[in-house]
């Protein structure tokens, strides 16, 4: 783990290129990240990548912090920061520009109609990801119950979800899930 200039450069190049490819959220770029980090660049083993992925999933915050961890693994804290900025920079600039255009044409007819078309697709995608995540996570009836309890509490109550997450973490730790 040496934070040499060459390593940082490699991180920047790698994640800058990936940034605009991550259409459909950060997780869409995971297979390509894995291919590059493990197979092409040899930054880590397959097992290490899987471990880093697990750590990023357990940690709070956007899933994209897997990139922070890869950078950190390769070149320490500087690597973590540089990799994250490279990964988010181009897509953030694009989002900034598009957000500006979207706000400027707020009342334009074409903008209203496109928006009216995008929203239901977006909601359908989130519902689809809910199903896919539930199918992957619900390996036994305890896990299924956790999913159901969280869904009901999340929709019908104002209880903070962290309480259920704490319960879920304990259930997982003692091996119930």
């Amino acid at each position, binding site marked *: 783990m040496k934070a040499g200039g060459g390593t940082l450069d490699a991180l920047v190049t790698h994640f800058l290129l990936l*940034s605009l490819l991550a259409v*459909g*959220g*950060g997780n869409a770029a995971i297979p390509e990240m894995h291919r590059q980090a493990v197979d092409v660049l040899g930054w880590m083993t397959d097992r290490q990548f899987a*471990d880093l992925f697990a*750590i990023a999933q*357990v940690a*709070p*915050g956007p*899933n994209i912090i897997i990139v*922070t*961890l890869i950078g950190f*693994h390769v070149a320490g804290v500087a690597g*973590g920061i540089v990799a994250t900025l490279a990964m*988010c920079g181009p*897509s*953030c600039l*694009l*989002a*900034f520009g*598009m*957000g500006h255009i*979207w706000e400027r044409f707020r009342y334009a007819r074409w903008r*209203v*109609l496109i*928006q*009216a*078309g*995008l929203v*239901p*697709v977006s*909601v*359908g*995608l*989130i*519902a*689809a*990801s*809910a199903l*896919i*995540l539930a199918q992957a*996570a*619900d390996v036994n009836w305890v*896990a*299924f119950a*956790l*999913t159901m*309890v*969280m*869904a009901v*509490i*999340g929709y019908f109550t*104002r209880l903070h*979800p962290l309480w*259920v*997450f704490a319960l*879920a973490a304990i259930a*997982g*730790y003692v*091996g119930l899930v």
Partner: protein
Amino acid sequence: MTEPPSGEGRALNPRPSLPELLLALSYVSLTGFGGVLPFARRMIVEQKRWMSAEEFNEVFSLCQFLPGPNIVNFSVVYGARLGGPIGAVLGLIAILAPAMVVVMILGGVYMYFGDVAALQRILSGLAAAAAGLIVAVSAKMAVPLFRRGFGPAPFVAIAIFIAVGVLRVPLLWALLVATPASIALAWRWRT
């Protein structure tokens, strides 16, 4: 669909100042387990009442169609709306920096101990709960689609759900077909 009793009916509050936004998004960053969307929506729509359910859907859907992590895009776009380029940078820092600190500490612990068996077990529990929370947030986000004299929107959402969630059509293909179709349907419905 019944309205979730989560305080979404209350009147909206005035737009937050940038420090308020910074604080709120940092809190979301630190507490957003298993995907940040439910936590961000809970904070902005339900607790602070800075955005209506409809507005949130609008901004989030735009961000979902752009490349990059959705919630990071959302923080940038929302931050920019409140405070221009400075707001955008603050939104970005607030949603990323706290989580980055936590994950690098965890990464350091991992490098020291090198065994994530316990973490993997915890993760399997968290993943089950996180899936439930996404179920809840997708139901909440679907509510506005069904409001007053709805058009094709609920049917489009259900079609996408079946195509991507049940039939597992590759995301890119589903988007390439569904997005123009959905816009065309909205166009016909409103003209």
